[in-house]
């Protein structure tokens, strides 16, 4: 295994800094971004070929970066810059998919919180769709500060903040991997491999609290590593202060990331105790972070337990049911509705990528076991890599799929390092011609990245959909946006709406109204039941003071990934009786755009 000292590139010549191949990597990444924009344009105008151009785009971003990082010649600063360029270019792919506004389910929820802070000037507002989110205001607080300072729109502020979060996580991973492995090459490759997390390209790039909390948590872990190696007490205290401050910010930003950080610190302390003795482990830091997380849970965000419990218990129950043969397994490569849509070639790439990833993890584990198994942090990260591979079968179980997918974002931090150690070990073997190595590495990283993209997001949702279109020189928004905007303008923010999952998110953001959806309260059943209006439904409307019911016959309106765009072709519709039951003597029918109707139901209370 090479070390920092062994990888000594020429950094300065005559006091001037050379940028190495960075300019060419930037050019390739920019070409990739331009290709992604072209792919999206093809998709939203209904032309074919977008998917092929999309794959070209990500290959232009990932492969040249991997090639350069696999070589020996780049300096540490150049490697750090390359992983940042790759991270930002991949974020641009996501932004170009939705350049007009947020269209991801969680983004729309957090966007409401951001607008509420900007409107009211205070934190801890309310959110009728995900009530727990305003109790963790870190993300929205920073985005609001950006919007206020720069005089830019809330959407632009959110995009800016997540771009900054991307810079943070790429730099933090690079420095963490470098500190743990002692290898610049492993560090750069590891940070790039991390982008192959199935959720990295789209889900983790959304304007959501985890997208900020995880990068900050990674910096906290890096600060901990530097605290351990501080040359004197003063420097150690400074690094401890940095770790604690950042961990405290994580606590007020995202629940699961905070608990994952606490778990990470405690396991690290125990491993350290076991391998190197009790002294030197960050017990005090782990303890303080645990107390902060518990304190925030108890005094500021008590609803977190009720929010998270069904997710985990549901996953555990489904795993048991599936193992007992009582529940069906999930269709792999399916969209939210469970329909398999991914082309066969992509499915093969995904499976091949997972196999290659598994082999690279095994190679990395060999390196760890042979020379680094006394290093508690290295051991912990390697264990995370193994845990990630163990979560892959959970993707076959419907209720456990989301838990496994979300856990992957954390566990892949271990995969990034372990795989890069395996790759660097392979690079240093003499069995294969040396010159071929970087090319091979670029292909491997691109394959693993592609596999992650295919596994992480439905193929039909990767490219831009028509959400705003040009018609006769005017810009039109999709019908659900039009309904929410009209409702807000005509009926004001005091209206309380019951709507399908996708539509409700638009009512809170573009109508600036309170909207209920989902199963708590059970709006799903109210809107899907074809029976005449039942007494319990009237009770529900009264209890939540719902003044408007929006019925949307299109099946896509309950799809929180796909339900925000223009229909292309005749949409699939649900039973008309579920909407018609509101055509009652005591109900006003105030908005009708065909499949989408808004009823005034206050008299039903």
């Amino acid at each position, binding site marked *: 295994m090479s070390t920092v000292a062994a990888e000594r590139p020429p950094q300065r010549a005559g006091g001037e800094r050379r940028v190495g191949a960075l300019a060419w990597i930037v*050019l390739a990444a920019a070409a990739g971004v331009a290709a992604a924009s072209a792919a999206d344009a093809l998709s939203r105008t209904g032309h074919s070929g977008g998917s092929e151009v999309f794959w070209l785009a990500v290959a232009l971003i990932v492969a040249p970066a991997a090639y350069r990082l696999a070589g020996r010649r780049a300096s540490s600063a150049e490697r750090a810059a390359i992983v940042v360029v790759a991270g930002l270019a991949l974020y641009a792919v996501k932004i170009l998919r939705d350049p007009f506004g947020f269209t991801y389910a969680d983004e729309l929820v957090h966007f409401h919180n951001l607008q509420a802070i900007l409107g009211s000037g205070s934190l801890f507002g309310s959110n009728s769709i995900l009530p727990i989110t305003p109790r963790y205001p870190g993300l929205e607080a920073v985005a609001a500060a950006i919007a206020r300072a720069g005089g830019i729109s809330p959407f632009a502020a959110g995009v800016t903040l997540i771009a900054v979060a991307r810079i943070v996580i790429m730099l933090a991973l690079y420095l963490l991997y470098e500190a743990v492995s002692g290898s610049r090459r492993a560090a750069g490759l590891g940070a790039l491999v991390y982008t192959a997390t199935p959720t990295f390209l789209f889900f983790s790039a959304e304007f959501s609290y985890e997208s900020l909390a995880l990068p900050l948590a990674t910096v906290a872990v890096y600060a901990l590593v530097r605290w351990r190696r501080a040359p004197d007490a003063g420097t150690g205290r400074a690094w401890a202060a940095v770790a604690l401050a950042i961990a405290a910010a994580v606590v007020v930003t995202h629940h699961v990331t905070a608990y994952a950080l606490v778990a990470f610190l405690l396991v690290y302390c125990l491993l350290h105790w076991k391998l190197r003795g009790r002294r030197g482990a960050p017990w005090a830091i782990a303890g303080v972070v645990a107390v902060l997380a518990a304190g925030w849970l108890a005094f500021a965000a008590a609803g977190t337990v009720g929010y998270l419990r069904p997710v985990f218990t549901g996953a555990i129950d489904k795993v048991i049911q599936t193992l007992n043969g009582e529940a069906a397994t999930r269709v792999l490569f399916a969209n939210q509705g469970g329909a398999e849509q991914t082309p066969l070639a992509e499915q093969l790439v995904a499976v091949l990528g997972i196999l290659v990833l598994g082999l690279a993890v095994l190679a990395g584990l060999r390196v760890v076991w042979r020379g680094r198994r006394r290093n508690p942090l290295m051991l912990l990260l390697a264990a995370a890599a193994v845990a990630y591979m163990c979560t892959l079968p959970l993707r076959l179980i419907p209720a456990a799929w989301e838990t496994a997918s979300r856990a992957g974002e954390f566990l892949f931090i271990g995969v990034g390092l372990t795989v890069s150690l395996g790759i660097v070990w392979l690079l240093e073997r003499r069995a294969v011609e040396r010159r071929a190595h970087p090319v091979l590495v670029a292909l491997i990283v691109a394959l693993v990245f592609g596999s992650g993209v295919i596994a992480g997001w439905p193929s039909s949702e990767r490219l831009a959909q028509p959400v705003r279109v040009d*018609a006769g020189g005017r810009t039109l928004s999709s019908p659900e946006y039009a309904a929410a905007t009209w409702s807000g303008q005509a009926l004001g923010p005091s209206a309380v709406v019951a709507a399908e999952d996708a539509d409700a998110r638009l009512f809170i953001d573009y109508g600036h109204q309170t909207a209920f959806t989902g199963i708590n309260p059970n709006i799903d059943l109210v809107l899907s039941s074809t029976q005449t209006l039942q007494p319990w439904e009237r009770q529900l409307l009264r209890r939540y003071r719902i003044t408007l019911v929006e019925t949307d016959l299109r099946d896509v309106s309950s799809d929180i990934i796909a339900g925000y765009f223009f229909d292309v072709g005749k949409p699939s519709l649900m039973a008309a009786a579920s909407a018609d039951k509101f055509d009652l003597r005591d109900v006003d029918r105030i908005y009708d755009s065909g499949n989408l109707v808004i009823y005034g139901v206050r008299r039903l209370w």
Partner: protein
Amino acid sequence: MRARTDLGLVAVLALVACLVSAQLPTHLALVRAPIALPLVLALPGYAIVAALFRPSQLRGVEIVLLSIALSVVATVFAALLLAALGVRLTTAAWLDTLAAVTLVAAVRGTARGHARTLRLPRVRLSAAEVLALGGALVLLSGAGVLGLTPLAAPKGAQGTTALTILPLGEGVVELGVISDELHVTSYRVTLTVAGKRGPRFGPIILAPGARWSRVVSVGLGTPLVAATLSQAARPSATYASVALRCWCTGPGAPPA
């Protein structure tokens, strides 16, 4: 704190950011954002790093990372502090707090001897590298322009038209048509008052994105006002229908 040190520059930039945010209106965001945003995303963190560490203790990459991360952290805590004190999160409150954090940390860093003399980084780029970066800029600009341009709808995209009705007060309603069809469309609106056919409107010719509205007096105590929308090309097919049956929604509506 001398201006020719890094911390002196940070202090000056923080004050300028405060001033710019206070003075420049939001429609000048292209000028305002690059000057003001560092006060949220970089300057507090840089000053805190300087207060905590000697310059020789950190590498450049570490300084960049910690400056950003600690700025974000400082912004989060500033918001929590202001909220706890009951201060409204206005632009001035936020930026003044962040500027104060930056100045205090910069002074502390300077007092500890952690300020560095300003030097411009000397980066040597070959002509080919300059061309590559220029090409990248062109490609990124093109990608952005293409991405932000609304394009024609795909073949088969479904436009929609909405018919709306709202009570404006006793005996008065407002009818509206919002045409989000992809081409110019002609409509007819038929009103029914208490079961009897009322006035008809049309042809109403609307371009994509255009709206039509009409205030109609229907008489006091009217129990039912209904309207239907049809496209002039297919007058027999009702496209949308609305009805006010109890007038219990909307501004000015009587309480239930």
